[in-house]
């Protein structure tokens, strides 16, 4: 088989094999485990680089493996999947470094990093999935790999949170499965085809397609935390910081959003979905989630829970972007996939640092934290500004494109108010944190303060990741129009979709 | 006229059988039940004879009535109800089971009545009789048992062996009987040789007349049981290895011959033409011995001491570490 078509498999293996190897390691062998982790991450990064080059030059990157009649495992790299793969690979590298620092001298690390790599394998597999069947498989694998991570601490709260997480995601998974099977029975094996495979088939009964779309969206909506199905996200905040960083900013939540993008663009085709009146429903759900998530975030005092609700609302931008028919909105939705990932992961890193170094969990305890931990708070501020949509940082770009796309598609009259209210609400719950951190004097002593060793406010492995991702967010924002930037890539995707 | 008479006899037999069956099942006192059951077995043997199935009559008499009866009688004191009155089933439950049983009876007999006369009644008998001569034996039942459907018999022996293995695994031997009165020992001294001889006779006659391995085996077991009851406790003196071989010889020979035949001819248990009769006899003798050993062990109730390699402490303590 031509080497290039094996590339997706190599990318999958580059995190699967180290993961399995780490499982075997004994608890004490730190060096080997860290080495394996980093080797896996860097190897994957290089392979993804090759992948980008391949996709850019229209090389055929596909691998098929038959599991039974009509059940084919397909790994296929197209522009959309490359975007998501790059995002998860880069952020996995950063989060691994952060996790190594964060979990210093804690128990069960082999188990943690094993499942950590499995989770990323699942995410990458999900991104590279070539047909709906493979997508459903990796979607369920992701749930499996993330359950032990959420329950890692083993405290009753963690186990309860994990259980609720599992209940939601598996219920969603079952609905997705039923939808996928139903679709496959009436329309044959569903391959992801640019412009949507169903738009070609006219003889299908529209009402069945609507019901299937509803099932698929509910199934994916659980992970994408659309409103009624978002209950698990705040509960899953009991997980350790790197977990909530990678999973709830990049892997799990994005998997759902990515799924929605795939279903709308590559299964139904956006015009066909529009003609069926599905996008209005999706848009409404997304808008409600955006506003609801922000409003709920207002009232949360626990920092990570507030970030969780903000994730709930931010992820629905992607859904909103996909719900609007038009290249610009697509670009906005797809690019937000990357931007939100980068910004949210910085916020979670920062939250993790606050919890780890000063034992600060609640926003009310964050007075004057800027002085004590300037680096982390700077990163937090940049990311927070990005989330609100202030220009230099990446968040603005996607809001701008979604807005423009909405105007262009004539849906501006409800999309713009949603964007505005959500930006305002974002500001309402992010700026007080920034304002407390920088401008309020330190009122009472920190709950559990770790002494400062060495020159920096905390160990390097904990300090640098947020700074790196914050600067990444800033760079993506500032150099949005640069050749290999996510925005350019999103435009490439949009151009191929329409 | 004659068949009217026969019909009356049959009707009498059937009603007697049904009544006896009903009483046996419905009896609450276990002793009464078992005696009725033995009587039921004997009546059934009579009916087999009436229905032209002499082999079965023999087998029923020896195994159905004899051995089963003996086992049950021996087990009576093992199963004294623990004094707890069994929870009475609600009337509704009993009533519904009776009704359902009746309905099942009607459906089954209706369907049997519908088809029994249309179907040509010969079924497989013509086929068996036509192939009888090259089956090596003249008694059709033995031919079917040990040649045509020899595989069934093999598995049946396996079933017996499994039952015995379970009994051996469960508990040690029962305590032996005290030596019985002089009268019984006297009779035994006469009766046991007669039994052994007649068992041999039954085994031999099986080839061309009703008889065969199972009836002979059961007869032999009856002899052993009588000895056991007479106080000749064979537990201690018995050479264990011999007992093991006895248990195993029946199936071992059967399978051995079957495999050898398979290697010679093209399928399992396919006796080469001349040898069928002899081979069947060899198998039958081995089977008789195995069955006798098995049934005796069943009656005796468990493994003779020394059967298990380690201390035969039958107390469940050593299995403490290994509860359910």
């Amino acid at each position: 088989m031509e080497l290039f078509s094996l590339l997706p498999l190599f990318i999958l293996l580059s995190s699967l094999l180290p993961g399995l190897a780490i499982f075997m390691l004994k608890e004490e062998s730190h060096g080997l485990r860290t080495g394996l982790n980093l080797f896996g991450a860097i190897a994957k990064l290089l392979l993804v680089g090759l992948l980008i080059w391949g996709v850019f030059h229209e090389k055929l990157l596909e691998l098929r493996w038959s599991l039974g009649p009509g059940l084919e495992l397909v790994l296929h790299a197209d522009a959309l999947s490359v975007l998501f793969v790059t995002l998860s690979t880069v952020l996995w590298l950063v989060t691994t470094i952060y996790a190594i620092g964060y979990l210093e001298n804690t128990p069960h690390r082999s188990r943690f990093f094993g499942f950590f790599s499995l989770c990323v394998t699942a995410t990458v597999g999900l991104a590279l999935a070539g047909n709906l069947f493979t997508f459903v498989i990796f979607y369920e694998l992701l749930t499996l790999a993330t359950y032990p991570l959420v329950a890692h601490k083993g405290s009753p709260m963690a186990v309860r949170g994990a259980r609720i997480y599992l209940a939601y995601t598996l219920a969603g998974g079952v609905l997705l499965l039923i939808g996928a099977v139903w679709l496959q029975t009436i329309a044959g094996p569903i391959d992801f085809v640019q412009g949507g495979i169903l738009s070609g088939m006219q003889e299908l009964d529209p009402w069945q397609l609507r019901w299937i779309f509803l099932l698929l969206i509910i199934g994916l909506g659980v992970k994408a935390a659309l409103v009624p199905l978002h209950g698990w996200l705040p509960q899953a905040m009991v997980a350790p910081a790197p977990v909530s960083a990678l999973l709830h900013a990049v892997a799990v939540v994005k998997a759902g959003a990515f799924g929605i993008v795939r279903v709308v663009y590559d299964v139904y085709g956006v015009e066909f979905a529009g003609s069926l009146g599905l996008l209005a429903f999706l848009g409404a759900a997304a808008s409600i989630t955006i506003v609801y998530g922000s409003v709920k975030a207002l009232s949360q005092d626990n920092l990570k829970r507030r970030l969780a609700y903000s994730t709930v609302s931010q992820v629905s931008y992607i859904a909103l972007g996909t719900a609007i028919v038009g290249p610009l909105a697509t670009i906005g939705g797809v690019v937000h996939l990357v931007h939100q990932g980068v910004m949210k992961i910085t916020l979670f890193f920062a939250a993790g640092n606050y919890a780890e170094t000063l034992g600060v969990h609640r926003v009310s305890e964050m007075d004057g934290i800027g002085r004590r931990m300037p680096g982390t708070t700077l990163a937090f501020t940049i990311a927070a500004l990005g989330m609100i949509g202030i220009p230099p940082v990446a968040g603005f770009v996607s809001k701008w494109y979604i807005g423009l796309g909405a105007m262009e598609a004539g849906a501006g009259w409800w999309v713009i108010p949603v964007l505005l209210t959500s930006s305002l609400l974002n500001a309402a719950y992010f700026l007080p944190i920034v304002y407390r951190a920088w401008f309020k004097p330190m009122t009472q002593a920190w709950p559990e303060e770790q002494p400062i060793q060495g020159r920096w406010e905390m160990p390097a492995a904990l300090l640098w990741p947020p700074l790196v991702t914050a600067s990444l967010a800033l760079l993506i924002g500032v150099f949005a129009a640069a050749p290999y930037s996510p925005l350019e890539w999103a435009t490439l995707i949009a151009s191929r979709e329409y | 006229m004659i068949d009217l008479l026969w019909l009356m006899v049959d009707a009498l037999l059937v009603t007697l059988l049904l009544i006896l069956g009903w009483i046996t099942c419905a009896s609450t006192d276990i002793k009464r039940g078992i005696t009725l059951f033995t009587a039921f077995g004997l009546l059934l043997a009579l009916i087999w004879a009436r229905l032209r199935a002499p082999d079965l009559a023999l087998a029923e008499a020896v195994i159905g009535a004899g051995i089963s009866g003996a086992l049950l009688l021996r087990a009576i004191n093992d199963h004294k109800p623990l004094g707890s009155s069994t929870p009475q089933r609600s009337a509704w439950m009993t009533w519904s089971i009776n009704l359902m049983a009746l309905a099942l009876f009607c459906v089954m007999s209706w369907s049997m009545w519908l088809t029994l006369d249309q179907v040509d009644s010969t079924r497989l008998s013509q086929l068996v009789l036509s192939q009888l001569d090259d089956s090596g034996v003249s008694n059709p039942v033995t031919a079917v048992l040990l040649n045509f459907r020899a595989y069934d018999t093999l598995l049946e022996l396996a079933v017996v062996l499994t039952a015995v293995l379970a009994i051996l695994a469960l508990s040690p031997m029962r305590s032996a009987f005290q030596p019985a009165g002089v009268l019984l020992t006297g009779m035994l001294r006469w009766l046991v040789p007669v039994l052994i001889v007649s068992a041999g006779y039954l085994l031999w006659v099986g080839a061309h007349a009703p008889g065969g391995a199972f009836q002979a085996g059961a007869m032999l077991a009856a002899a052993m049981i009588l000895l056991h009851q007479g106080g000749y406790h064979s537990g201690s003196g018995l050479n264990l290895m011999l007992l093991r071989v006895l248990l195993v010889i029946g199936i071992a020979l059967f399978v051995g011959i079957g495999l050898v035949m398979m290697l010679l001819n093209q399928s399992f248990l396919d006796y080469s033409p001349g040898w069928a009769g002899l081979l069947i006899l060899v198998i039958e003798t081995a089977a008789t011995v195995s069955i006798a050993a098995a049934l005796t062990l069943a009656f005796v109730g468990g493994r003779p001491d020394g059967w298990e390699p380690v201390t035969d402490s039958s107390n469940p303590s050593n299995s403490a570490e290994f509860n359910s």
Partner: protein
Amino acid sequence: MNNLIVWVIGIPLLASLLTIIWPRRANVIALLTALACLLASILLTYQVHAGGPITHALGGWASGLGIALRIDAFSALLLLMAMLVVSAASFYANAYFADPLKQVRFWPLWLMLIVAINSLLLSGDLFNLYVTLELLGLSAVALTALSDNRAALQAAIRYLSIGLLGSLVFLAGVAFIYAGYGTLDLLQLAELARPDALTLVALALLSAGLLIKAALFPMHFWLPAAHASAPAPVSAALSALVVKVSVYILVRLWLDVFDPALSPAATLLLGILGGMAVIWGSWQALLAQRLKLMAAYSTVAQLGYLFLFLPVIVALPAGELRDNAFGALLLLALTHGFAKSALFLGAGVIQQQAGHDRIADLGGTARALPLTTFIIALAGIALVGLPPSGTFLAKWQLIASSIHSQQWWWIPVIAAGTLLATAYLFRVLGHAFGPGDSVGKVVNWGREEIPALTLALFASVILGLGSAGIWDLIVDGRIY
């Protein structure tokens, strides 16, 4: 080796005899036999794949008179799965029964169980099925009674009495068939079958007997007690094979032999019972306090799934769609076999190390017995039907077939079953990951855990990825 089909039955039978004569070396004999049978079943499956179904007329007699041993794709794959489970359980038992007393009692009965399973899978004659069912029942009861405590014995007695009743009802069915058709060979029956009153009553009796033995929903009361109280390798074999084999006969009778006589209403009834079994079994598993009891109830549930297939297969038109559904039924049976035996073996390890298997006190198991927890997790994935496992593909196909055959109502049952299965499985894992140290400091790789691991891997990974072979074996490898 042309008539492997006989050696598969002959070898364990001879071995069982050998273990009686030579008790000290029983375990070596048994292990060798298990491996030999495994090898034989692999070769057999290959032969079936290459040359199609094999028939072996015992004693060389014509099929009506004598008994024929038959093997086709369906029975070959089940045989292969059985031998794999049996070999793994044998290696596991070798390490599990530390006390030589137990070893001596265990091996002969265990080999007899193997004989029963093999002969049942290969038998092509109705009365022979009765004898093998009886042999299976007795050896299963004997093995259950091996754990020698009050609960086990009561369960064994109850299992024996209901098993005997089932066999007798089956025998009555055989009698009716013989009355109606005059022959006992399944292949001949398949040709002669006609939907008249006697045949239907006979089929009803046969099925009623088998439903008891297969523990379908209302008649499942004996299974949880028996499987939970039996020793671990035995309950693994019971759940994975003994109950499964009775379902095999039922499916064989309903789909192959008496197919023309079938009515969709009857299969619908079985389907409904299957659905109730799925829901009730999963619910009880969720409430079960002990791990093995939970596993037993999950067997009841998983068998329910097998029965769900019947109405769907009957409703589908013959040809590609029906073969897909049949392939999925087979895949589900195989995967459940592996997964359930792995789960029971894992539970056995926990039972021995912790001295109990109460789910509430499983705290710290993940730390003390990491490999066993991994095994239970893998088995759980296969039981629930999550992606890497064969069950996922089977459920995918089941939903697809039920949509094809316009029987929508099975889908919510499957969904509810899957979710309940996740609930009771991850309840266990939740406790295992939780705090506590009731299992003490055990982190070694016991010899016992490796066979369980291979079984679990078979269930969730190998069958998940390599299951394409089953479907193309089904297409040409069927006798009927």
